[in-house]
């Protein structure tokens, strides 16, 4: 092998080591560095400089035995330099002492264990004082190291706007003094919901690209799954954490079946269970069982149980609408969400007929959020058509088609709209 080929291979190895460390350690390092200063942006800046230094240094000197410790040492030095630069006098020496204490022990190359404060970082990102809409992007950036550009494209916003909102959120964390800690046991339930909601929001954003054509969005579901897995590792006794991962795995397992070979939308009722990822379903079922054993019900467990019921119905061919309707009743009680109300109405229609379903469907004139929600109009159109109210059904289909942004789903709705009237 020539010298340059050797160097290239080395470079590739270094890069892949750096990438692997980045993936595994990024959030851990940010959480640890920011934990003391509450300055997420400074921790991220220092860390990105440390990664740049690694890419320059490792190919020459070889990968260090403890890459995490190496990165932490360099990043710590950068943070201290920055603090020296910005401040002077006694205030800074007290702060530096705080910063170095603990940091040096953790960066010791002989002791590879950097304490894992990622859970605290997740609670910071989903703190009630942080704007709801930025929590998921913030978590993706600080825990996983995703670039603002990638996050922006996944959330359908401009990179500049996303970057600005992320900076604002980090400023808020630092200025308002949001603590880097896991809430007390008595408070954890309420605060955990926000963490799980943010993870689920990231997943849902990625999920909406059903065709899987947009790499940034498809990867977002993987990143969200990584966060959910991390949360279950860090909080193995929290039933809702297990429920959320179960729900996400159930959805993920059916990804391939959502589109036909020619790219057309396939509704759940018409999917080929042979295309489902059964090992993933088995994992989802095991998680749900584990959650159930902890005996505290919650939104995500109920949603996962519904996914499980749908899978069983399609797999066994046995109708289970009574239990599905019961689960939706419970979910409706718990959340009062109009989205749940729509699905509940559809289940009621299966159980007691389209007219009963239609009666249970919420009214868009009472809730303006529904007026622009495609699944509401699609459900309404379908139920109306089944009761024979064809003219009204046509109008509801028009609304649904006009509100849908995915062309495959639009074509599906158009086929439904044009379907012959069987009465």
């Amino acid at each position, binding site marked *: 092998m020539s010298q340059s080929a050797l160097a290239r291979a080395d470079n590739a190895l270094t890069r892949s080591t750096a990438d692997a460390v980045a993936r595994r350690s990024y959030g851990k390092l940010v959480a640890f560095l920011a934990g003391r200063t509450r300055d997420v942006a400074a921790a991220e800046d220092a860390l990105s400089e440390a990664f740049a230094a690694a890419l320059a240094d490792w190919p020459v000197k070889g990968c260090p035995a403890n890459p995490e410790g190496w990165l932490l040492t360099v990043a710590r030095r950068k943070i201290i330099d920055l603090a020296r630069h*910005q401040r002077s006098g*006694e205030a800074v020496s007290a702060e530096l002492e705080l910063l170095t204490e603990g940091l040096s022990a953790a960066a010791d190359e002989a002791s590879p264990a950097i304490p894992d404060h990622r859970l605290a970082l997740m609670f910071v990102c989903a703190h009630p*004082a942080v704007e709801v809409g930025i929590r998921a992007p913030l978590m993706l950036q600080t825990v996983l190291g995703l670039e603002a550009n990638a996050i922006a494209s996944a959330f359908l916003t401009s990179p500049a706007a996303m970057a600005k909102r992320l900076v604002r959120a980090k400023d808020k964390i630092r200025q308002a*003094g*949001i*603590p880097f800690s896991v809430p007390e046991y008595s408070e954890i339930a309420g605060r955990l919901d926000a963490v799980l909601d943010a993870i689920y929001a990231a997943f849902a954003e990625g999920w909406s690209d059903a065709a899987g054509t947009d790499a940034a969005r498809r990867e977002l579901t993987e990143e969200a799954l990584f966060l959910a897995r991390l949360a279950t590792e860090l909080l193995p006794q929290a039933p809702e954490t297990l429920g959320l991962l179960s729900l996400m795995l159930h959805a993920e397992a059916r990804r391939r079946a959502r589109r036909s070979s020619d790219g057309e939308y396939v509704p759940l009722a018409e999917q080929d269970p042979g295309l489902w990822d059964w090992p993933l379903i088995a994992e989802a079922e095991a998680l749900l069982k584990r959650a159930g054993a902890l005996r505290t019900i919650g939104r995500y467990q109920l949603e996962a149980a519904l996914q499980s019921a749908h899978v069983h119905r399609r797999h066994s061919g046995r109708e289970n609408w009574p239990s599905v309707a019961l689960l939706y009743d419970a979910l409706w009680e718990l959340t009062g969400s109009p989205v749940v109300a729509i699905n509940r109405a559809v289940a009621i229609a299966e159980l007691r007929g389209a007219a009963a379903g239609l009666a249970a469907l919420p009214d868009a004139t009472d809730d303006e959020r529904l007026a622009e929600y495609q699944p509401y109009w699609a459900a309404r159109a379908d139920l109306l058509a089944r009761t024979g109210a064809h003219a009204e059904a046509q109008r509801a289909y028009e609304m649904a088609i006009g509100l849908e942004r995915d062309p495959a789903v639009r074509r599906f709705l158009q086929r439904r709209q044009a379907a012959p009237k069987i009465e």
Partner: protein
Amino acid sequence: MQYLLMLYVQEKGWSKLTPAEQQQGVAAYMAYSEALSKAGALRGSNRLQSTSAATTVRLTDGKPQVLDGPYVESKEQLGGYFLIDVPDLDAAISWASRCPAATHGVVEVRPVWVNPA
């Protein structure tokens, strides 16, 4: 960290209370203030007179313009404050939620500016 808890309440509500209710209200604020002080968190506190006593001043072209009334007309008015010293925002939020004003008004939590030495 120091936080200013700003109490926004409907000041007209006070005069509508019966003397017994007013007494109860004052007692609640005194107990709250006492609890803060016992916890070693209280740095200062005052109740303000109503916005009808407020005057607004600004310099326009070097000349002070003095206007009668508060800066912002709003449904709730700034009626007082507590300056507290606690470890972090969660502690500040927890104290804000115990403040009687959180029940009949709104408490805004603002970290105090710290000069970078």
